[in-house]
């Protein structure tokens, strides 16, 4: 078990800056989720920690060691790849044992550790099969077992759930959480899926254009976003934003600011701003109500208004966020 720390890490690919001075720490035993849109540098960040990419500037520490110049194998971390990267010509057992065999562990140790890891992720029943005979979820488990078997200092997970179908993804998400609780190792999990980030992480780091925008617990990041990007990226449907003029219909806001309110904080009823219901999308127990003033509200499906109805829309001032119009930074209500 070890903490992972990035200190001022920069990485460029030609003209493109993938990581632009990243300072980030995954605490000992923590499951840190790095989330961001495609191309924000989150996979590069993971590959730099793994040693698969060399950093241009800055330092990476695992535990107390500076590993910036160490080769990947000397960093004692395990990585789970998006495509699982299972060796197709080897059986599940051989795949799991791979790292131990390369490190020339004794047969006894290999046997014991493989049994232990396959038990932990539930792949005992198909140890003699080959990867192409397994479903996506099963392959994912094998990839996890392969990462576990070496008892590394930390785990790096690169979008491990993104190739799974929706049902399996939710199930594996829960299992990943359970697994983390059982082994208690430091894990850095990269994803573009904000729901995954919010449900899985002890803490979340939101990355955009190679910079860390905010780090905090899911509650902090969702409830008190540092800037407009974080506010807009997390949450589905996305937060509503209003300029000063549009916001005036609800509250007076300071000059040079933008008002943001989450759809679930918008109340539809008889009070508030009179508006027409443009469109209603039902998503299971929730309904997303699009109002004709560009406002989206999230209400329980059984309380949804009809399309075309005239309703009142309102929200509490305390639930709304203020952001600087120019910099996007969070501003507090006066």
């Amino acid at each position: 078990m070890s903490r992972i720390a990035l200190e001022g890490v920069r990485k460029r690919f030609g003209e493109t800056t993938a990581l632009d001075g990243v300072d980030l720490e995954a605490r000992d035993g923590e499951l840190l989720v790095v989330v961001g849109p495609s191309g924000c540098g989150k996979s590069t960040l993971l590959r730099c920690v793994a040693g698969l990419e060399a950093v241009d500037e800055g330092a990476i520490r695992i535990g107390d060691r500076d590993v910036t110049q160490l080769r990947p194998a000397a960093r004692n971390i395990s990585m789970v790849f998006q495509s699982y990267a299972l060796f197709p010509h080897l059986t599940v057992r051989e795949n799991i044992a791979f790292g131990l065999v390369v490190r020339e562990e004794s047969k006894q140790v290999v046997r014991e550790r493989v049994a232990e890891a396959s038990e932990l992720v539930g792949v005992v029943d198909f140890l003699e099969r080959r990867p192409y005979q397994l479903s996506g979820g099963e392959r994912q488990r094998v990839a996890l077992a392969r990462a576990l078997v070496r008892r590394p200092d930390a785990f790096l997970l690169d979008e491990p759930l993104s190739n799974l179908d929706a049902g399996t993804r939710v199930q594996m998400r829960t299992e990943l959480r359970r697994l983390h609780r059982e082994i208690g190792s430091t894990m850095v999990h990269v994803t573009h899926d904000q729901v995954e980030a919010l449900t899985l992480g002890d803490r979340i780091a939101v990355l955009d254009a190679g910079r860390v925008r905010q780090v905090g617990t899911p509650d902090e990041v969702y409830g008190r976003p540092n800037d407009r990007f974080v506010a807009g990226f997390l949450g589905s449907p996305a937060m509503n934003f209003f300029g000063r003029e549009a916001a005036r219909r609800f509250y007076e806001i300071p000059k040079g600011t933008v008002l943001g309110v989450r759809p679930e904080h918008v109340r539809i009823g008889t009070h508030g701003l009179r508006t027409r219901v443009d469109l209603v999308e039902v998503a299971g127990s929730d309904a997303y109500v699009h109002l004709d003033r560009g406002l989206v509200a999230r209400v329980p499906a059984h309380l949804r208004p009809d399309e075309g109805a005239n309703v009142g829309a309102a929200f509490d001032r305390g639930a709304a966020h203020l952001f600087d119009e120019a910099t996007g930074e969070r501003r507090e209500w006066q």
Partner: protein
Amino acid sequence: MRAGERKWGGWRQPAAIAVAVAFLLPLWFMVSGSLREPGLPPPRAPELIPSPISTASYHEAFDLVDLALYTVNSLIVVALTVPLAVLVASLAGFAMLLVAGRARVVLVVFSFAALMIPVTALLVPRFTMFRWLGLIDTWVPLIAPALLGLSPFYVLLFYWSFRRLPLELFEAARLEGMSPFGMWRRLGMPLVRPVTIAVALLAFIASWGNFLEPLVYLFDPDLYTLPLGLRSLETLDRTNYPMLLAGAVVATAPVVFAFMIAQRYFLHEDRGAGWLGR
């Protein structure tokens, strides 16, 4: 896919038979011609089964020149050339995969350029070089090109095959501390087996049928390979067609045999979708 199968389903078998007949017929006439009595002229009309059947042409061919010795010589040359060519070409192809960015482009372009040079253009410089090294009239000039993978085409073939494998497989191995040689041996080679067999087969055919280089480099008849033996037959008894065809059968049989063995591996390598985890 399925619609395509249905569309072609009815045609596939007759088409396959037509192709097989087109390729088998000359082989058949070669064998049947070799079984005619020695010294007979070619039949006026194609003869499927000669009458009477005789193996005397084979005896005559083996008596006239030492075909047995030449066959053994060819087998030795091939046995040294083919494994060496596969080894070097696959290692070179794998190295091209591992080197970074620009160096890789240079290597690929260089290999392509080398591919464009006709073998005959190299004949004189090579001869001069081997003479300077004192290796004329040995098998070394026949085997030495295998130290360069025999042909840049084989190197590129391996490179392309390795490149088709997901890069993450090799990265996963790197994280486990596997050496580049280990990756080549335990990941790369097992995953490109059909290509290895194809290259081995092509190298076998090229080496076995090589006429020009033995002709240029070998003077001692005890070192002759089979293609030179065939030429000796032709020189000694130009009009004895059954005997010439008997020699041709001896020269062709190993190639057909090698292909029959190799094609099993081609057909058995299909493991369906998701084989590479994609």
